[in-house]
């Protein structure tokens, strides 16, 4: 049976870049554990020598010509950006 600890939940939250409040952690831990216990079922099936599936469209090496096409202008694409300065996307200070 898979179990998941409080520390693992905290680590997962960090990996997921999602701030989790202290009072949310235990509920989340229980929910994640329930899901993991369900998917543990896969441990019952023998997969020795089986290749993993990477994709199902049965397509290989789809190429196209590398040509420039007009699509969106810089202005159009910057319209959805939360903060713009002189045509650049602005981010808060990193350090």
């Amino acid at each position: 049976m898979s179990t998941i600890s409080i520390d693992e939940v905290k680590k997962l939250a960090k990996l997921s870049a999602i701030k989790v409040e202290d009072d949310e952690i235990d509920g989340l831990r229980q929910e994640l554990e329930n899901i993991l216990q369900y998917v543990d079922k896969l441990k019952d099936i023998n997969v020795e020598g089986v290749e993993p599936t990477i994709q199902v469209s049965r397509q290989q090496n789809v190429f196209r010509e590398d040509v420039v096409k007009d699509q969106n202008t810089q202005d159009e694409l910057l319209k959805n950006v939360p903060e713009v300065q002189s045509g650049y996307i602005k981010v808060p200070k990193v350090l």
Partner: protein
Amino acid sequence: MTNILKKEWGKIADLASAINAGETSAVANVKESLRLIDEAKEYNAVLHLTKTRALDRAKKIDELVKSSKSAGRLAGVPFIAKDNYLTFDTETTAASNILAGFKAPYQATVIEKLEAEGAIMVAKANLDSFAHGGSTENSDFDPTKNAVDPARVPGGSSGGSATAVALGLAPFALGSDTGGSIRQPASFSGIVGLKPSYGSVSRYGVVAMASSTDCMGPMTANTEDAALIYDVIAGQDTKDSTTTPRKDNNYTKLSDSKLKIGVIKEHMSDGINKEVRSSISEAVDKLKTDGHEVTEISIPELEYSLACYYIIIPAEISSNLARYDGIRFGFSNRKDQDLEGLFNTTRAIGFNSENKRRIMIGNYVLSSGYYDAYYKRAQKVRTLLIKGFEKALEQVDVLVGPVTPNTAFKIGEKFNDPVAMYLEDLLTVGVSLAGLPAISVPVSSAEGLPVGMQITGKYLDDKTVLSAAKTVQDLYA
């Protein structure tokens, strides 16, 4: 709840012919659709309208017809797109707070193809946010109600689209299906929903959930309409390199030849609601009487499909949802903090509980130490599942069974139990992992609630799936 009359639009091909012949106007169709949407507001099927663009396009189509030109195979036919399709003249939110206010700078390939044939988008439909769910209760903008019983869920994640079509708010709607999100709401709402073969319809311009199973497809009042819309939207797209060349140049020419049909044994087991099973058995009997060869087929690997799905799909979700960082688009929590703080709080506020659960499960199964035990193992089980389907489909033309283990449940009934909600996907996820075409077509109701039969076919043999669905539809006519 006002009891609104279900609008019958008739066949889409006839609607377009009437427009092209100048008998009806596109403007009248659009106005009628907008009026119905307004009347059905309480169902919360629709999130946004595209009134201005719709009326402009309708006027242009009417002018085109007046100058004796054909306005296309879908001339003046209104439709509603699930709000994860990128479209002009309105927001595209995927029913998530993190995308509230987002205005797409380009449109999905599917929308472009429909517009090129004269179809007119009038509104965007509600969904479980980012298509995470099977009830539309996970929408950040309130649940949608079931068209047959408003106390119940319409299914999901394409629940808004399902209710819209079931009420006749437009002649058709677009859905997206990652693990059952077109088929299950179609089943719960008594309409037709086609999940095409993976890669036969472009995913370009649709908010990604799980890229290896996401499929775009029509939700319609009948199988002929589903075939027509599929015929318009299918085809290779240079903007989506997983798309495949068309296998057939006309999907509307359905066959009425007798089929070899396999009833999936595992999908008719005791775990499936008895009433649902009896509706399906009745349909199977009708098919037998109609001269089709019916056998029972076992696909033992199906037992593992749901567990496999709930590893692979969260893994892909965690990757696809990494782009919502509050920097380039969407909601951004800019309150005096550093970059990392902005990421973490933007995502904490912008995503809902189900989004977060899936992202975290995905990161868990992909993280070092667990990757081999979960993700890689699941991809191997997926190979076995694909082989299981292939073996079964060597013996028959199509596989049949129920779409869902139960009929539509009450709003709130499963909301606080994620695993119970996931179990609703039991019968649809296997097909998704294998990339096969499948449809939900209505059969007899169970205790007054709609039941859909799931018909699954060989990869890229969407035509046989549509033909079989039409056969079933005609047996109930």
